[in-house]
């Protein structure tokens, strides 16, 4: 991917020594290169966190398994969760946003290119710091190496008394640093979208991807900052002997829960809104219809942004809140299903009566629609506080949020990969391999996460390293683990497809999908300056207007 992009950017890759080319990547402030750096970096961590998930599943495959020790198991689920959220999902979505937003709004770069580079390198450093804990986390007492406090790191487990050594320090510093990087990216997204749009692109004519990333960035500002603040407090507790979360001195463990989840729940929407953005760009192109209900989509996005800020304590029903607290958070958590449901209807409305082309991006989007619906339904079940009391901390919850993160976010990410791969690399992927990837991944996903609900309903708690036979959990855990391997094979096919296509794929041309947004009007991959002349747009589908001057969109908008 590296040599290819440089070559087309006019650097004459063959002439330059490898050191100079690498130097170009390290010092770049080009949004396209930083976007690709984000994506490649996240894919690297995706593989690592996937291996950690596999270790967890092998350990739980049969009762009384001794594949890993309890201590290692704790580290594995902590590192798997932390890595997947902070160093896979967020940077990969930021990567697509960094790459696509300037191209889609007709700009030549982000508003603050150097801040863009700083944000990426802060995120990258955070990830390396987290993994350095495997080497450097021993601390003075030789206790622990990687963080093992769970991805939400409840107090007082993170205090010096219960978490000796430096593993928790690596966890909190990694999140602090990558959080600052995320805030920088969010500032950049908003400034770019507000101030860099090409002439004619009013907010009402902006691609939905830009709209949804705008709302996401606003949420990052308001939701990641509390996490950063809480990490500073935790650092003070651990290094300076402060008592924020020290229950011995009157501090409150529940306060940490509030601070973490006031970040943690908006975070889910920070991840899902860019996924919605991919679906909102891909489904219309492959249905050959403009998006159904554009203004309603925008309104629903903004509504989700607002409501998601007021649902966090549904992660905390079991701590014993007053009844009005339970009622409030039950109601808000159920209300957020309304704008989300609106979106699902709008996507179906877009497909309805369209000439649907079932290429790989569209297949992943259709699967996303079904799976996201089911994930939303279990979400409504868990939002009801009495039901939640029964199943909180069980594998039902684990199945629910993996249904969202894998079934919705990862599926749309795969769709986005296949959809924009021709633009980023200039070459087509293999459709055959992509179909294999899709079907194997769908089968593996449903084997794993459909059946994971059942041991949860039967009372299997999350985060246990092993279990007794004969509780009715055995067969389900075996199926879940088998599904993991099917997914692993599917992801392997995906990686092979990408690597093969980068070097050997058919040349893609500027616009392989006959699409309508501005990124398809420039070459694949785009030149350093993106557009030779800054485009002017008159409707939401500028390329449709160009291709159909006899029947342009702006007549009807």
């Amino acid at each position, binding site marked *: 991917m590296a040599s290819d992009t440089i070559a087309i950017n006019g650097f004459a890759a063959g002439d330059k020594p490898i050191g100079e080319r690498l130097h170009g990547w390290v010092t770049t402030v080009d949004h396209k290169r930083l976007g690709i750096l984000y994506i490649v970096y996240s894919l690297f961590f995706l593989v690592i966190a996937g291996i950690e998930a596999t270790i967890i599943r092998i350990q739980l495959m049969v009762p009384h398994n001794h594949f890993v020790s309890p201590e290692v198991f704790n580290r594995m689920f902590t590192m798997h969760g932390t890595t997947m959220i902070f160093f896979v999902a967020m940077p990969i979505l930021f990567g697509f946003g960094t790459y696509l937003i300037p191209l889609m709004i007709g700009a030549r770069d982000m508003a603050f290119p150097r801040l863009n580079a700083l944000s990426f390198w802060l995120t990258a450093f955070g990830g390396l710091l987290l993994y350095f804990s495997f080497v450097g986390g021993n601390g003075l007492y030789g206790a622990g190496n990687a963080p093992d406090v769970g991805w939400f790191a409840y107090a007082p487990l993170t205090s010096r008394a219960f978490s000796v050594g430096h593993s928790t320090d690596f966890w909190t510093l990694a999140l602090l640093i990558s959080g600052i990087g995320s805030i920088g990216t969010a500032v950049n997204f908003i400034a770019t979208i507000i101030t860099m749009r090409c002439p004619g692109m009013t907010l009402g004519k902006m691609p939905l991807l830009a709209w949804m990333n705008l709302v996401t960035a606003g949420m990052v500002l308001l939701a990641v900052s509390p996490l950063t603040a809480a990490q500073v407090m935790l650092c003070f507790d651990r290094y*300076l002997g402060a008592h924020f979360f020290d229950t011995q001195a009157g501090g409150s463990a529940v306060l940490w829960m509030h601070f973490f989840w006031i970040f943690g729940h908006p975070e889910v929407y920070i991840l899902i809104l860019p996924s919605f953005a991919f679906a909102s760009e891909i489904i219309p192109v492959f249905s050959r219809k403009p998006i159904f209900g554009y203004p309603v989509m925008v309104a629903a996005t903004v509504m989700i942004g607002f409501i998601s800020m007021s649902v966090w304590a549904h992660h905390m029903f079991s701590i014993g809140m007053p009844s009005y607290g339970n009622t409030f958070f039950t109601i808000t958590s159920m209300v957020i299903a309304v704008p989300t449901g609106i979106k699902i209807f709008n996507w179906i409305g877009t497909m309805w009566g369209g000439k649907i082309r079932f290429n790989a991006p569209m297949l992943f989007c259709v699967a996303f629609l079904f799976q996201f619906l089911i994930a939303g339904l279990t979400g409504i079940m868990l939002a009801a506080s009495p039901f939640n009391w029964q199943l909180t901390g069980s594998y039902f919850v684990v199945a629910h949020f993996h249904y969202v993160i894998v079934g919705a976010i990862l599926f749309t990410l795969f769709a986005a990969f296949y959809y924009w791969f021709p633009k980023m690399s200039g070459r087509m992927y293999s459709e055959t391999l992509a179909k294999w990837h899709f079907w194997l991944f769908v089968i593996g996903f449903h084997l794993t996460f459909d059946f994971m609900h059942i041991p949860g309903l039967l009372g299997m708690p999350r985060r246990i390293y092993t279990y007794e036979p004969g509780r009715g959990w055995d067969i389900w855990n075996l199926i879940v683990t088998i599904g993991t391997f099917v997914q692993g094979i599917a992801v392997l096919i995906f990686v092979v497809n990408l690597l093969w296509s980068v070097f050997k794929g058919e040349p893609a041309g500027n616009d392989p999908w006959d699409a309508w947004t501005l990124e398809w009007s420039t070459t694949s991959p785009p030149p350093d300056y993106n557009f030779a002349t800054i485009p002017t747009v008159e409707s939401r589908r500028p390329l449709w207007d160009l291709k159909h001057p006899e029947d342009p969109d702006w007549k009807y908008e």
Partner: protein
Amino acid sequence: MSSVAAAPAPLKPEWTLPSRGRVGMFCLIAAESAVFTIFVIAYIFYIGKSSSGPQPKDVLELPIFISICLLSSSITIHLAVRALGKAQLGAFALWWVLTLALGSIFLVGTGREWYHLIYEKGLKISTNLFGTTYYSLVGLHAFHVTVGLLAILIVTIFTLMKKVKTEHHEKVEVFSLYWHFVDVVWSIVFTVVYIVGR
């Protein structure tokens, strides 16, 4: 429709968008507000929960003078920015240096207060919950003042080297937004720590 078609093509309206510096600064301020909100919530949550050690009413005195200094530096920086917009470089330098002086007085005042609390009253960040939340919240604000003062100092050096011109007006104005934000935060911290918390 026909009447529209018959009319001469309307001139395209000029395409103007907000300045990216201002938008970026407002975003940063939004994020910083969230950070301060969390620290203020922690402070309010822990008022009166210290199990031992000095209590706020025993040791805290109202920092009236330095508060007046900091809040009036908002006025001086505003006058400085306005002078730069009108190309009055002398007036700009005067108001800018005054801002630096007022901000520095505030920072020195905070330092003296901390010295008094640590060495004479024995209140440290690890003493009790009051110490924990007090030093965190006031310290977070003082950190922002320090960052702002460093930026003001850099601009002061450039001013003395006669490098600051009218074309830098927007950049200086964008920075002044940050300084106003720091002042607004102080009025909240003052209310919470020295009035409500005492």
